[in-house]
């Protein structure tokens, strides 16, 4: 397919790998964070880190929307799903995320009507075809996914659908990045920027990274050549003593973002004062709730939600993995008590989660990384 095949060309990939080798200082260790879980997935799937010099280390960031949902939020969702007359809908990966007393899948097995959907629009269709039931959509995702929820809510409002609500757990990427950069136990040289979040918000919101922290960030696509070229652009900035926002993914990302999408987000959502992130704790203004104009569609307004707070399991080190402090395989329960089939931590649930990606694709290169 055009725009895809060109970016999987092995010969070009080897050429970029050669350029990377020529750019690095052999005496320096480089630590580059891929913010987005989609990049983590690509890196393992295409074994991109095998093409990099040993002194260039890729560190996984907090950008998997499933991985950052705290256990209490899952418990709240299950409580809603168990209410009489409710059809509870969510994306596939969310079904397997463990709460304190089990996952959505467990609750479904116990009789709750929980259904997987591809999109909020599918959930709205369910509401229209089940007018005697209340359909709740559990909305997760960064700025990439929020416009889809927003458009669906606008459609529901325009069509006067009264049995459709959203439990909004959309999060924003800039506040956790700032929290990470302020974290004392973290040393990073640069960032691979989240390409599809930037499709919506643009590259401008990331200007604080070079301005306040003097580190380069390159907004990147997701094909193997995209990621390799972005790593090269970051290393080149470092070699030349520059710190800038650069856009490798120009074919998709306008620097100012998608203005129509931003307008829609502004109408439907407002910032929550604070939101709990798994492993990162409470972060100010890091998540979205429905605006006053859409309060009728807010499941947390219309239904009783317990507001559960649950500490992460002690054995689980998702927080340190999300901050890039440890590698997935350095977690005490990785691959033993915690596997994609029976996850303890959220990073093992979604394929975009660092632990699941590592378990599925990368664990055989562990020896090489340990050298």
């Amino acid at each position, binding site marked *: 397919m055009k725009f895809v095949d060109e970016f999987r060309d092995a010969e070009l990939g080897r050429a970029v790998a050669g350029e990377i080798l020529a750019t690095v200082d052999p005496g320096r260790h480089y630590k580059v964070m891929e913010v*987005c879980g989609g990049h983590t997935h690509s890196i393992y799937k295409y074994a991109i880190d095998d093409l990099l010099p040993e002194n260039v280390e890729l560190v996984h960031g907090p950008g998997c929307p499933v991985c950052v949902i705290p256990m209490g939020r899952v418990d709240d969702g299950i409580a809603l799903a168990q209410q009489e007359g409710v059809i509870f809908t969510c994306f596939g990966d969310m079904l397997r995320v463990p709460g304190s007393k089990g996952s959505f899948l467990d609750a479904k097995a116990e009789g709750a009507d929980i259904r997987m959907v591809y999109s909020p629009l599918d959930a709205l269709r369910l509401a229209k075809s089940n007018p005697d039931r209340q359909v709740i959509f559990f909305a997760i995702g960064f700025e990439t996914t929020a416009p889809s929820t927003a458009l669906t809510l606008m459609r529901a409002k325009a069509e006067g659908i009264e049995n459709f609500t959203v439990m909004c757990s959309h999060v924003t990427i800039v506040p956790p990045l700032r929290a990470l950069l302020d974290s004392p136990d973290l040393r990073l040289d640069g960032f691979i920027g989240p390409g599809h979040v930037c499709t919506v918000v643009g590259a401008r919101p990331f200007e604080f990274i070079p301005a306040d922290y003097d580190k380069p960030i390159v907004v990147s696509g997701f094909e193997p050549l995209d990621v390799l070229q972005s790593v090269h652009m970051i290393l080149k900035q470092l070699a030349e003593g520059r710190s800038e926002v650069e856009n490798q993914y120009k074919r998709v990302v306008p620097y100012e973002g998608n203005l129509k999408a931003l307008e829609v987000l502004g109408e439907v959502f407002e910032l929550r004062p604070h939101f709990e992130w798994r492993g990162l704790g409470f972060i100010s203004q890091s998540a979205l709730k429905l605006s006053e104009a859409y309060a009728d569609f807010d499941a947390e307004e219309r239904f009783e939600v317990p507001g559960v707070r649950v500490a992460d399991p002690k054995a689980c080190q998702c927080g340190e993995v999300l901050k890039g402090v440890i590698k997935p395989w350095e977690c005490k329960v990785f691959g033993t008590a915690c596997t994609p089939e029976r996850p303890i931590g959220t990073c093992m649930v979604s394929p975009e989660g660092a632990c699941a990606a590592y378990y599925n694709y990368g664990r055989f290169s562990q020896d090489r990384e340990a050298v």
Partner: protein
Amino acid sequence: MTDFTTVPEPECDHTTGCITCGDEAVAMTVLKLDSERGLALCADDGGRRETVEIALVEAAEGDVVMVHAATAIARVEARDLGGRELGPEAIPA
């Protein structure tokens, strides 16, 4: 008449990824536009068809759009098409 109402059977294989859960978008070609309802029928590389919200992008039939959670969030621009144009600085001629 194009059927925009089909709901595909959801399937989620956690070993290969559920695209809606991650920050992932899929390149799809616009086959048919229904501007009045803000919807488009699109097809991916493998021929899978999906009804997509198209209100956020300016796209015509035949354009390639990036689709996430059944919403087109960007139109892919042809100006960066092709390996050489991908990154002349990074890729030796």
